[in-house]
């Protein structure tokens, strides 16, 4: 794509990009800074005993979850966006619901239902030997659970793409004699590539960073290796070296993603009318419904039912007025973070679009790297510079105060929000950036020729066309922040507990049943924006 506009002061454009990127790079840099210290025998130990297995396990997981979430996300998005079958209107928003379910919660409930001691196998054993029952605590099991939990990222982005491709695309395809199947494989799917790639790369980054789920499965990845080196062997350098390998993988992902999109324009064909529904009939229609029911039940309804049963058992003792605070805090934090991060994403994506210099492209990509870093590692990386700044401030105040405070910036919402931004920028950036690709250079030329430029161009041309992408970004960040644990734990002010913190409190002593109550609350509160968003995207 050629440069659509040459800014007059490129250096000025770099300043905001640099600032936003710094927020991410600082914590990552802090984590990597101990890379240069010798890790000595711990590293040698990892090399001799674990590294090969960790690498293979991580790669298998990425391959499996990438493919699994793509198949689930794309198929469901195509069905609900372009086809007509029983229950389509319901499924079009319901298939988003698993987004509200934290991955580790899904893992725990599905394992509980399907393992040897679970109700299903116990019931089956009543009829005789079931030696061949597949083991849920396996590579296949962890891939299945993570694909079910993470496909909504692909679904949401991809559905947006199919909806905005416009019905004329498919009308043209049909008038040229393309069958609906050929229209999907040769036109709709290739044209949705930035969205699919964007969604899958979010899934892969989340997979790389995940600790809770793989720990529940006892499936060893780079992340569990990092935790082991850091907390069991007290070797920050060895943990850093593992983390840098993980970041290399994430960078490789980004390059692959950029390559997959290069040299193509993905502009909307005609106005963004909703795609013409392809009428599915007979067994095909029922198959489509059955597929949706199957995914929705395993990824959401069955685990939710299990959570509700557990929550009901403890509600009498555990549910009290404090839950109002927890819900309020969760909503406030997630809402503020969603606004801040989506705004920053818009700035970044806009700058990257208008400045094709490799320096700017690299900067904007680096800014999204934090999503691939394990949460607890990034939390520490974000806290260290904040504490350092605080120490500096407090020490400079010391001569004037008899009783200096122990915290100024740390333990404030501001510090929390900055740390969230370092972690979740990718989540806001992907949908916003993909949506920006929908706006043709011609539309911008036309607007400019009418004398509309700068901020006014953003407001009058871009924002209205970006509405879907911005809403998607807001929603994804909102739900992700609601579920986030390590950063919230590390940076929250005293007494500032959220629903996710409550989940942590219960699970930290292995009391999963009691954790069901805050988990259910988390899922229910997270559902509101999902439903709001889906209603909105139906309207457009």
């Amino acid at each position: 794509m050629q440069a659509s506009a040459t800014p007059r002061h490129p250096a000025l454009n770099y300043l905001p990009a640099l600032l936003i990127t710094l927020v991410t790079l600082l914590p990552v840099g802090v984590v990597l800074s101990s890379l240069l210290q010798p890790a000595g025998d711990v590293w040698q130990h990892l090399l001799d005993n674990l590294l090969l297995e960790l690498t293979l396990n991580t790669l298998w997981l990425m391959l499996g979850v990438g493919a699994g979430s793509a198949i689930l996300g794309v198929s469901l998005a195509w069905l609900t966006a372009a086809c007509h079958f029983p229950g389509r209107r319901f499924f079009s928003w319901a298939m988003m619901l698993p987004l509200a379910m934290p991955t580790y919660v899904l893992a725990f409930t599905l394992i509980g239902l399907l393992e040897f001691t679970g109700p299903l196998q116990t019931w089956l054993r009543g009829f005789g030997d079931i030696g061949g029952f597949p083991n849920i605590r396996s590579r296949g099991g962890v891939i299945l659970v993570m694909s079910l939990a993470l496909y909504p990222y692909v679904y949401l982005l991809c559905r947006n793409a199919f909806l905005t491709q416009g019905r004329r695309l498919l009308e043209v395809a049909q008038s040229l004699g393309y069958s609906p199947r050929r229209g999907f494989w040769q036109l709709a799917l290739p044209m949705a590539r930035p969205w699919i790639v964007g969604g899958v790369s979010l899934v892969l980054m989340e997979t790389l960073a995940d600790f809770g789920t793989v720990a529940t499965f006892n499936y060893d990845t780079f992340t569990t290796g990092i935790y082991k080196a850091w907390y069991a062997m007290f070797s920050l350098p060895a943990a850093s070296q593992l983390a840098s390998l993980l970041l290399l993988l994430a960078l490789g992902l980004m390059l692959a993603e950029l390559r997959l999109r290069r040299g193509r324009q993905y502009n909307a064909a005609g106005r963004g009318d909703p795609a013409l529904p392809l009428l599915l009939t007979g067994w095909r229609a029922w198959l489509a419904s059955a597929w949706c029911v199957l995914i929705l039940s395993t990824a959401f309804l069955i685990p939710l039912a299990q959570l509700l049963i557990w929550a009901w058992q403890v509600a009498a003792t555990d549910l009290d007025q404090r839950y109002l605070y927890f819900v309020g805090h969760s909503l406030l934090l997630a809402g503020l973070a969603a606004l801040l991060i989506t705004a920053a994403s818009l700035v970044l994506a806009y700058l990257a679009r208008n400045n094709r210099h490799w320096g700017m492209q690299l900067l904007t990509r680096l800014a999204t790297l934090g999503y691939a870093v394990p949460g607890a590692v990034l939390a520490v990386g974000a806290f260290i510079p904040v504490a350092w700044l605080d120490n500096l401030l407090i020490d400079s105040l010391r001569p004037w105060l008899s009783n200096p405070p122990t915290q100024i910036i740390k333990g404030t919402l501001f510090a929390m929000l900055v740390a969230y931004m370092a972690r979740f920028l990718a989540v806001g950036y992907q949908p916003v950036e993909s949506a920006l690709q929908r706006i043709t250079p011609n539309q911008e030329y036309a607007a400019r020729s009418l004398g509309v430029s700068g901020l006014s161009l953003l407001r009058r041309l871009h924002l209205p066309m970006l509405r879907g992408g911005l809403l998607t970004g807001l929603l994804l960040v909102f739900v992700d922040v609601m579920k986030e644990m390590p950063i919230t734990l590390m940076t929250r002010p005293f007494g500032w507990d959220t629903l996710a913190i409550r989940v942590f409190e219960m699970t930290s002593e292995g009391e999963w049943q009691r954790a069901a109550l805050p988990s259910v609350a988390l899922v229910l509160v997270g559902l509101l924006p999902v439903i709001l968003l889906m209603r909105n995207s139906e309207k457009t």
Partner: protein
Amino acid sequence: MKRIAALVSLSLLSGVVAAESVTVYSARNDQLVKPLFDAFSKETGIEVRTLTDKEGPLLEKLKAEGANTPADVLLTVDAGNLWAAANAGLLKPVQSATLAANIPAHLRDPGNQWFGLSVRARTMFYNKIKLKPSDLSTYEDLANVKWKGKLCLRTSKKVYNQSLVGMLIEENGEAKTEQIVKGWVANLATDPLPDDTKLLEAIAAGQCDVGIANTYYFGRLIEKKKDLPVGLFWANQQAGGVHVNISGAGVTRHAKNEKAAIRLIEWMSSEKAQNLVADINLEYPANPKVKPDPLVASWGTFKQNQINVNKAGENQVAATKLMDRAGYR
């Protein structure tokens, strides 16, 4: 509820209110420590502020905050974590006759930087239909080929197992311990389980005959399901004794309210508070003068391993590496 609201508003105003207070960084969760601290505040008038997080991040937080930490007390589980905190220079020695009298020597730091407040015993559990107590003897015995396909273990990534293997290293030396752990791995009935509750359920369902877990997980299960076919066996009674670990506390190096901090820890070790400390999670009081919860007492008395729990921390790295080499995941 009013008390909670009051506490929230108090903590918000704590910069203004001059009342004596103490700030605790706690890896023990809120519902375990809250009743305890409320009782302390009621008795002494000292306000307690808590911030919970996992052990690792709490230590990193203390390190990063340095001299400007608001924390006066670090409260956590596992001697390994307390040892790591002391080793990183985050705690300060406390000379207290009360603590020396209340807490047995093997449950506190020889350098007086931290003190055990409750005891967590890690012992053997068996399926009562398949085994008799006389079939069992020691942790080491579980490496014997007669247990092939009959043993359940929790993941080696849990610090409890790192501490247990650390103690075995202390008693048997590294080479012999590695043979024992390799024997365990060869005897596994299924891949290592993610937590002790799952392990006990696997024993109950007959997936395996025997396993190692902390007693309070057993207590929680048995409270809910009295007829669970799982029995508790006190390991190594003819040898060194059952492996015990602690939950404990220390005063931070840069504590601003040192006197109140010491008072809190001393109070937690006292006879009137020990039941509050231990019973809520079905653990054993660290103070030997105090009787455990009736359910816990019903499991009988046992010989504790007398090696200082400090060794669990010292040997943690060696134990972790050893388990990796032995293929214990």
